[in-house]
């Protein structure tokens, strides 16, 4: 088994998934519980253990101060960016947070940065994949919203590193989705992807040409999604409860979390039913109930008289802008693809049809299609296969890159929707005699003034040889790589000296900080994996031996001849001998041998069970205990 296996990960606002390419098809790897979706929920239990996914969901209601959801909304952001978020989401910031510092979220007594919390989710996905492959997984492709800026991308990459994953590529979510669709339909044409997820909205327009997926324009809103719909419904419920029942539960974390769960269920129900009942058990035993019709729901998410308050309408502007940037009219779009759970809402589908004048494709599960596409990209990066032959993704940078120049103006040097990798070179000189440093402020955004753009970083060019003002000529090269992440290098041309660039990211962790956070460092990843593998093998040995004990007591045992019984006994003895040792392979071999050797016993047991049943005896009497659906006595066990 290759240890070079690269997985594709969709690190979502609401749910996350891991997928890989099995033969010519991408498949999602389920978790221990057999479920494909891992909720992006992280909790800290009272023993200070990190709990992730479904198991963490109950903490949202029981101990909301120890759990967090939708952390993706905070990735790569500063305290001043998230005032709106803080009003709507129960994020508990660390009290000692300094301005300019990377955010830290409180979970119980501890605090974590958003990349660390995302890393817990990634680590869970990594483990799910390792369990599935029975081999370490250290490389991944992770998807990000197309409209993520540099800081948000960098934060995602940091999260991967903290989780012990080498992030080989960040792929934009709508583009990934198009890859998953494109695998089936190898045709040429223009495709629009409308991706309304839990917390982010993206639209991308692609040109498909003989396996090349060329993104021509992308747009979006990194703070728009299903979460916002939930918040509208929560507000209504809270108002009702205050008005009708005279109770203000808006500050009761547990109550709000219960209401949130109920409104999400109602929202989902309304996609398939004309009306649903919203019911919540409130603290003090009170009961809140309200019927919501689909019509009311649609009024709420798309009020016809107030387009500025319409969640749906907020997706229209980005779609139109993307079409304009692509130089296309709606009727030139050949196919439309829907991505993200929120596109299950009938009103959203109707809007998309109206915008692009096409019935959108929904054949792939909108919750899984991004992860599947990430797996396709992972396959391309690992050298490709027959299924991905000739496939190549050419993506763009969603936002213009600029530099602050005199007057506080943004000088755009790489325009949005430029195919990446892309580069630009600028020349700088000094203003004062003997000046050895030059400061450069890098910005991202479309606005004319620097103060209205996103500050990415301040660079200090150091070590310029002292010369009269205006003489040095420092060439600075800005390069956006295939992940959409900026790199800067500088050289003083008169002296030929490489100028040092000292990066001070405006929002984000430094390399040293990331280093100190790494959960399973690359060096120990292999060791950790061996340890886990050993424990799992020992558990499996215990299970197979217990099953054998049961087999010996069954009537089937008596049907075996002496030789067979002797052989089994010998194999049992060897497994018993190696079980306590640290040699994983020896345990594994002994398990496999015993597994093989007891095949006939298992078959006989099954026959006995069936014939006993036919004779009118109940399953309980048939010495099989678990009935005909019971696993092969030596079937692979479930592990903790």
């Amino acid at each position, binding site marked *: 088994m290759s240890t070079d296996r690269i997985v594709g990960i969709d690190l979502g606002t609401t749910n996350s998934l891991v997928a890989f390419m099995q033969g010519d098809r991408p498949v999602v790897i389920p978790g221990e519980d057999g479920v494909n979706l891992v909720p992006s929920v992280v909790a800290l239990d009272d023993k200070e253990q990190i709990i992730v996914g479904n198991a963490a969901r109950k903490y949202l209601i029981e101990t909301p101060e120890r759990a967090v959801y939708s952390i993706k909304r905070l990735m790569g952001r500063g305290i001043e960016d998230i005032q709106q978020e803080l009003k709507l989401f129960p994020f508990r910031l660390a009290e000692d947070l300094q301005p300019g510092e990377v955010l830290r979220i409180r979970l119980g007594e501890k605090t974590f940065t958003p990349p660390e919390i995302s890393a817990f989710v990634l680590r869970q996905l990594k483990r799910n994949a390792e369990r599935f492959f029975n081999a370490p997984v250290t490389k991944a492709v992770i998807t990000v919203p197309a409209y993520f800026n540099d800081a948000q991308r960098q934060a995602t990459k940091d999260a991967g590193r903290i989780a012990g994953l080498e992030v080989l590529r960040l792929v934009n979510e709508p583009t990934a989705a198009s890859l998953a669709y494109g695998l089936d339909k190898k045709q040429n044409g223009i495709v629009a992807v409308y991706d309304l997820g839990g917390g982010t909205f993206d639209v991308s327009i692609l040109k498909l040409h003989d396996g090349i997926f060329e993104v021509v324009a992308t747009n979006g809103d990194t703070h728009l999604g299903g979460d916002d719909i939930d918040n509208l419904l929560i507000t209504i419920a809270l108002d009702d409860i205050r008005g009708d029942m005279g109770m203000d539960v808006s500050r009761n974390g547990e109550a709000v979390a219960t209401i949130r769960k109920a409104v999400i269920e109602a929202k989902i129900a309304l996609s398939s039913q004309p009306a649903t009942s919203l019911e919540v058990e409130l603290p003090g035993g009170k009961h809140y109930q309200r019927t919501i019709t689909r019509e009311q729901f649609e009024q709420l998410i798309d009020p016809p008289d107030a387009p500025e308050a319409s969640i749906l309408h907020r997706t229209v502007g980005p779609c139109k802008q993307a079409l304009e940037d692509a130089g296309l009219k709606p009727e030139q779009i050949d196919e439309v693809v829907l991505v993200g759970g929120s596109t299950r809402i009938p009103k959203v589908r109707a809007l998309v049809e109206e915008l692009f004048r096409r019935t959108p494709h929904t054949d792939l599960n909108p919750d899984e299609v991004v992860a599947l596409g990430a797996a396709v990209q992972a396959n391309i990066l690992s050298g490709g296969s027959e299924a991905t032959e000739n496939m*190549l993704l050419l993506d763009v940078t969603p936002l213009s890159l600029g530099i*602050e*120049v005199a007057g506080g*103006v943004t000088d755009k*040097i790489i325009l949005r929707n430029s195919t990446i990798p892309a580069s630009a070179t*600028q020349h700088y000189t000094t203003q004062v005699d003997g000046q050895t440093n030059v400061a450069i402020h890098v910005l991202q955004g479309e606005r004319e003034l620097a103060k209205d753009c996103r500050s990415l970083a301040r660079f200090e060019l150091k070590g310029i040889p002292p010369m009269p003002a205006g003489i040095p000529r420092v060439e600075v090269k800005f390069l956006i790589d295939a992940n959409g992440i900026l790199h800067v290098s500088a050289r003083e041309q008169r002296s030929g000296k490489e100028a040092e660039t000292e990066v001070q990211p405006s929002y984000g962790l430094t390399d040293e900080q990331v280093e100190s956070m790494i959960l399973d460092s690359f060096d120990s990843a292999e060791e950790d994996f061996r340890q886990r593998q050993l424990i799992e093998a020992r558990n499996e040995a215990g299970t197979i031996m217990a099953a054998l004990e049961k087999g010996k007591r069954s009537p089937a045992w008596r049907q075996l001849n002496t030789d067979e019984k002797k052989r089994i006994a010998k194999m049992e003895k060897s497994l018993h001998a190696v079980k306590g040792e640290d040699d994983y392979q020896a345990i594994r071999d002994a398990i496999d041998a015993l597994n093989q050797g007891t095949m006939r016993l298992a078959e006989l047991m099954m026959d006995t069970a069936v014939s006993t049943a036919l004779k009118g005896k109940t399953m309980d009497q048939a010495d099989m205990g678990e009935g005909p659906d019971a696993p092969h006595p030596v079937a692979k066990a479930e592990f903790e």
Partner: protein
Amino acid sequence: MRARAAGESPAATQARSRKQGLMAIDTSKTIATAGSGDTTANCWSCGDMRAAQFCHACGKVQPPLPVNYFSFFGLPRKLNLDMSRLERDFYELSRKLHPDLNARADKREQEWSLEQSSLLNDAYRTLKDPIKRTQYLLRLEGVELEEQSKTATERARTSGEVKKQIVLPDLLEEVFELNMQLEELRANKKMGEDDPALVRDLESHKAQFEKKYEELAEELKNHWDHWDRALDLDSAEERRDALDGMVDLLNRRSYIRNLVRDVNEALGK
């Protein structure tokens, strides 16, 4: 024309730029050094003699050579381009140079792949756009268009400097009238008055200018023909004429674009 942006005094602007301690001496994108020399070298890996961006023999990505965007695509510096061929070459080169397809190569080759494919993308982006292609050629030929560039205009707008404006004699009368109407509209706005007739007039003026703007794109093609012919004839004088024609046209174009933008702003669009 426009004064500085609201809320920023010239003094504040100066203070800010002083604090920043930097001065961009050339804000235009640098041109990949104009080398008319070799665009091929021996492959570093297999030694094949005709390796350009990648080796035709072993397929390995090569370290980037100093080329301009035309020579990157193996094209002469002509402005009439076969767009479908350019697109085909872009896709073909992408299939060789893109980092995704070199993800398993060693670190050094990955670096080259990143540099080569960014050069490819930058070149394709510039050459496929008629205006960007023309501007690029002008810069390659040593002509500076900076004073009419968008950045220069915006910087002047925010800093309040008077920007050197090119006079367009044939447009003078129309521009004069348009500016009068704009003043009137702004005055009306201040008084809270509404003059639908004036708005209509402005709209129709704007439409005229937009039409002219479109026509210029067509007219540009004549200059391309002129330039391409001059190259064939190898005539320095013809070349100079063609370049002058293009500079003049691009200046008129950005002048009209600024006018249209002012009208849009005044109309609140």
